[in-house]
């Protein structure tokens, strides 16, 4: 599974970067994003859901978060 590290990237740049990464990925593929705690972990999942992607889970790992997502239709 592809992992995109967005730690250290502030909102909304992290969301835009996630969006750009998803452009090159097939619909239905599962992908992980690493997000900082706080605003990124709160905002990025919601924004990606609004874009039509399917959220699968969010897990804490040593002070940051791993968002698992299935790419939706373009």
């Amino acid at each position, binding site marked *: 599974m592809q992992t995109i590290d967005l730690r250290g990237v502030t909102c909304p740049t992290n969301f835009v970067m996630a969006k750009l990464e998803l452009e090159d990925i097939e619909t239905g593929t599962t992908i992980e994003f690493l997000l900082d705690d706080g605003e990124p*972990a*709160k905002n990025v*999942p*919601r*924004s990606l*859901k*609004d874009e039509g992607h*399917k*959220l*699968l*889970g*969010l*897990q804490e790992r040593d002070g940051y*978060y791993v968002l698992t997502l299935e790419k939706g239709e373009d």
Partner: protein
Amino acid sequence: MAEPKIDLKNLKAGGFIKERGKDLFTVRLRVPGGRMSVDRLAKIARVAQKFGKGYVHLSVRQSIELININFADFDAVVAELGEEQQKVASCGARVRVPTACGGCEYNPNGLVDTQKSALEVDQKLFGTATGHHKFKVCFAGCPFDCPKSAINDVGFQGAVWPKLDVDGCIGCGLCAKSCTEGALSMGADKKPVFDAVKCIYCGDCIKVCPTGAWSAEKKGYTVRIGGKWGRRPLVGTLFATFVPEERVVDFITCVLTWYQEKAEGAGRVRLGDIIIREGWQSLLERLRSEFPQYVVQQTIAPQVIQTQLPLPGQQA
């Protein structure tokens, strides 16, 4: 008496404010909710260029004000603005133009259609004489409360009450992570545990839930009453929750009637000070008679904000 040069009816509802210079007035425009079409904006710009100083002022209550308008041009200004259905606003002891945030169509945080509410209140209540003082109404779409609803006489704030379909929950934990108020935590069974006391009705759990397990059980406005700014600021306090959007005008009317009655003979006094004088119970009981399912059990008086140290001779 000489024939008036201008139609004095234009002055009746206010909106023409005397400036320092001889014969000059500021003309405050009516812009409910702070939204207008680009065509209307272009018309205002042309009128400002033709009759004004060459600039406009954006008021803190979402109005555009034309500056340096000679009173002899009032009729022409009103007529030309009218070509784009732009009206002049009010000042004085009346219901003012309601303010509102952008609302729900494009703002991802918006929970209710504040623009629709502002337009409805503007159409039905704008200019209503209070008999006492100004009366400001404001609509915020969510608990972020960008328009600062609690410093209005009646301030509305969009709210949703969430409910969980446990079977539809996949235990992903996104809702608990999204809830900045700490009203949600994940239980040992990997399902969210809801602490209703901490919920501020923001709906973040509903928005983030990937499966739709969280949904809105009820939606409407939280209402705070008695706020104002100015020389003696007050912050309005909670009187009702989940007032439906279609009951907003009735609700304001009820508050307004109480204010008109209770401030009789009190002079130029704002609603919040009358609530402090009469006691919050009086207004709460009046509202309960018409809105029993939405009015809170009890509240507190509008809260005084001390903005300066006591002056010499005043008590601390």
